[in-house]
């Protein structure tokens, strides 16, 4: 398949089941809601070493938030429910509780609940106050700038992590420009995050390493400087490869995000140095979710 001179490989991205949650952070203004959200979703690019993958889903207008202030929706993905709960709690406690004027609310409904402010309340040292409003339990924790208002729990849902595609370009600036264009479009899709810096990862990995202590190492087949040294997957004109990783609530959400992302890359086309779109997989042995590029773009 070729779109605007860009070859779409007959391959697929392989993704895994994950557990996910969403939280809504509000603050006096969007600037401070965003600061809290950025802090909360920092150091959360990959479950390999961060414990979770997190990102900002979108900003919310005052009409969309529970307390009528500007807000930001963040999503956190982890390999299991326990890990997710731990990450949510520590991140909420260190990054949102501490952020001036912030408040924290559940962003997703589910029968499975995990603590949001339920345990943060103990920071109140006995001065915390519970309030049940419209059937939902909130905690008011006294802090130095007033009160930190937080919902007790949020929902936990099953989700999909690790959807991806690779952008193969003639130069590094062209690969980055294409990924930026893709991310801009993909950010408009609900229920997904792209957890890597700016949504783009330049160090895609393969499973395993020559070093026993490492579970993952550089994806040498896609490293342009190794073209003459390894079993490369790159043609001579490819000088740079970047990857976009997507976590989403459902396979369909990731499908949509991949479609608009790949389309944005293809819109730049061969004229802008974009040669191929490929994807990362492990031969279909590890993840039950397969995203076939050509089917998505059909």
């Amino acid at each position, binding site marked *: 398949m070729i779109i605007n001179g860009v070859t779409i490989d007959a391959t697929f991205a392989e993704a895994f089941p994950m557990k996910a949650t969403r939280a809504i952070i509000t603050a006096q203004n969007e600037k401070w809601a965003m600061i809290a959200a950025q802090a909360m979703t920092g150091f959360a690019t990959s479950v390999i070493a961060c414990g979770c993958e997190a990102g900002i889903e979108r900003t919310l207008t005052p009409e969309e938030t529970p307390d009528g202030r500007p807000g930001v929706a963040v999503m956190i993905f982890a390999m299991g429910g326990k890990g997710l709960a731990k990450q949510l709690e520590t991140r909420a406690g260190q990054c949102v509780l501490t952020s001036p004027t912030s408040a924290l609310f559940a962003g997703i409904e589910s029968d499975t609940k995990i603590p949001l402010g339920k345990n943060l309340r103990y920071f109140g040292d006995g001065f915390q106050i519970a309030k049940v409003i*419209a059937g939902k339990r909130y905690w008011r924790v006294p802090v130095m700038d007033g009160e930190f208002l937080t919902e007790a729990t949020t929902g936990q849902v099953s989700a999909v992590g690790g959807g991806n595609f690779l952008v193969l370009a003639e130069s590094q600036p062209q690969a980055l420009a294409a990924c930026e264009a893709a991310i801009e479009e993909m950010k408009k899709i609900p229920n997904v995050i792209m957890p890597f810096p700016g949504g783009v990862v330049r160090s895609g990995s393969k499973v395993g390493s020559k070093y026993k202590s490492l579970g993952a190492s550089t994806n040498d087949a896609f490293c342009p400087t190794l073209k003459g040294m390894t079993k490369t997957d790159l043609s001579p004109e490819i000088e740079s490869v970047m990857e976009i990783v997507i976590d989403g609530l459902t396979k369909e959400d990731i499908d949509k995000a991949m479609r608009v992302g790949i389309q944005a890359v293809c819109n730049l086309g061969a004229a802008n140095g974009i040669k191929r779109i490929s994807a990362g997989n492990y031969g279909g042995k590890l993840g039950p979710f397969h995203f076939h590029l050509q089917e998505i773009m059909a």
Partner: protein
Amino acid sequence: MSALTFTLKIRPDQRVDMSPLVCQLLQDKDPSDIAAIELQSGKRKLRVDELFNVSGSDTQNIIIKNSFGKLDFIGKELDGGSITVEGDAGAYLAMGMKSGEIKISGNAGLYAGCEMKKGYLEIAGDTGDFLGGALPGNKMGMKGGLILVKGNAGERVGDHLRRGTILIEGNAGDYCGSRMTAGTIAVMGQTGRYLGYAMRRGTLLLWNPPVLSPSFNDCGTHTLAFLPMLFKAFATLNSKFADSAAAFNRVQRYAGDMAEMGRGEVLVKI
């Protein structure tokens, strides 16, 4: 299916225990079975059809017409469905209600909504003492749900209140919020003496400055983020509390009762 309607024919001298006439107990009963139910009145038992004309068949939607102040225990431990009372209700209205909805167009007596667990109780008129309170000797009053009083409430509103919300559009009597363990009481009118007497936790939300005991300490003026959310939750009520003009988030905060645990608060609109 029309609502199961009990229209009072006679006003007995003695008080009547209406507790058998709740939705969950009448479910699957024939009209003849319902007519034969005996209600305690003083030391006598009266058949339902001696007291009421019974019509309709929807047992999940009960209407009591011509009601007066000696019909006690209306909606006792109601668990789903709705009861509408046209007229006054006696004591113990909605006592221990588990879920559902009770609305009365007149006044209610003592202990309305006492030890209520969940659901919605709306009283269009005034109500007696111990609204949402605990029965004598018990340590826990209302544990959940919402009570709306459009008129005035008597003394000891929310005595031993454990959870839930009591909204009063009019005035509340003395000892409002006494011995509260938690929960919220909002009063738009005036409050009496000994407000929040021995309250441990919970919130008393007032539109008018109260006379406070010396055991309440001034914590200053504040803008509280939870208040807009609380008012938003009232937006669907048929009440002055639903009016956005009545909402506020700037309050004077008093903590108390310091003679007790002292974790409660009185929030006064400023």
